[in-house]
């Protein structure tokens, strides 16, 4: 399982590194979306730093959707599915590998967006650094859950549009928990309750993925 996971993650990251889609397309998108969200709220509310965590997670959400979509579309090129299916890869390994690659990509994106948030939304730097571990965990959870949902939309008609509908409800609690824990870190409040939610979700999604990814793929 671990070997397969490493293999799949390396493959996804290599494709990513080669195509530079993250660097040239996803990151700029995230930065503009951050700017625009600030603008959409109007100067009064955006200047007010309390909007930072919410906007950060809102933008992260959309970026995540883009990335899941791309991660799955790699597997869905005509012909690719059949060929890879007959490799009989351990689905748990595939799941872990794809989730891992996505996590790495989301972490890169997240850190850039956090920097943007500190610069343009006046999110407090110290609080942000304190919130970093919880943010990374939340992003990993999004990646894991996203990989699972991505597999659900595989192969159907227009996965690009089906994905958001499926994921949004599942992501909502994660986003809220992430946002609250971020806010708490900014205002020096208690963190652990949100950590618990996100960690439980991470473990749960990972477990479900390891157990059920094979069922999703096999169709």
């Amino acid at each position, binding site marked *: 399982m671990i070997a397969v996971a490493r293999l799949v993650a390396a493959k996804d990251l290599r494709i990513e590194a080669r195509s530079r889609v993250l660097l040239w397309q996803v990151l*700029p998108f995230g930065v*503009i979306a951050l*700017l*625009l969200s*600030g*603008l959409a709220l109007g*100067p009064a509310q*955006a200047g007010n730093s309390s909007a930072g965590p919410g906007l950060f997670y809102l933008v992260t959400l959309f970026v995540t959707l883009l990335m899941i979509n791309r991660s799955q579309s790699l597997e869905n090129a005509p012909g690719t599915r059949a060929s890879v299916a007959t490799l009989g890869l351990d689905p748990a390994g595939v799941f872990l590998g794809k989730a891992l690659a996505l996590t790495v990509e989301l972490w890169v994106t997240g850190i850039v967006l956090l920097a943007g948030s500190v610069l*343009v939304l*006046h999110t407090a730097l110290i609080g942000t650094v304190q919130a970093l571990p919880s943010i990374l965990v939340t992003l990993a959870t999004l990646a894991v859950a996203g990989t699972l949902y991505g597999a659900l939309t595989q192969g159907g008609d227009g996965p690009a549009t089906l994905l958001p509908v499926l994921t949004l409800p599942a992501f909502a609690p994660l986003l809220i928990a992430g946002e609250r824990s971020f806010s708490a870190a900014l205002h020096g409040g208690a963190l652990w309750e949100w950590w618990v939610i996100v960690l439980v979700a991470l473990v749960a999604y990972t477990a479900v993925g390891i157990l059920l990814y094979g069922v999703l793929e096999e169709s």
Partner: protein
Amino acid sequence: MIKLSQRLLGPVTLACLAATFVLGLWVTPEDRTQKNLVRLLYVHPPIAWVALYVSFGTATIASCLYLWRRTRSMTMDRIAYCAMEVSVVFIILTLITGSIWGRPTWGVWWAWDARLTSTAILGVFALAYLALRRANDDPTLRARRSAVFAILTAVNVPIIHFSVVWWKTLHQGASVLTSTGQLNVHGSMLLAMLLGFVGFTLLFFWLLRERYRLEVKRDARSIATLDEALALRRREGV
């Protein structure tokens, strides 16, 4: 004549910029309210002017000329590309000098101000232009697409300019050249500013020229590799 001005471009640019710095840092007086911060006046507006009008103007005109059948040539495409790349540098400089100025005057590095935001958006626009070029590798298609995109982008420039009028902003209104055409700055300050404008504009063209030459060299190299590629491919046949 052309050759001479070509050769002089670098030195004149450096002279203008040096004069601006000397005038700006030592000759011009301190401001009553802004104190020494006023010295950014000789740097920030000229840089912003180049970032907005000179570079986007160049890129847009070159793009239009590319799209117009009679003047279509790869030269125009190259100019547009290089201008856009240089403009990224100037937009970043605008943001940096503006932020440095904003920290003491407004108390923040960044504010949700229409001009600041639109300037930043313009910067991402320029980056998006570069991303678009990367995503297409057929040279003609790339040239066409990026030309159209550059023109669509230019629409944002007037929006940035008028943003101070349309929205209530923190940012300075048009203070140097007001709508009444009246000049509000005097003496050595005016000279320093003027030199700044000339200097940074020249700097733009200097950078543009160097970047363009690099691009031509790169294309020449790719023509040299063309022969290699052809030989390699033909050898496959036997």
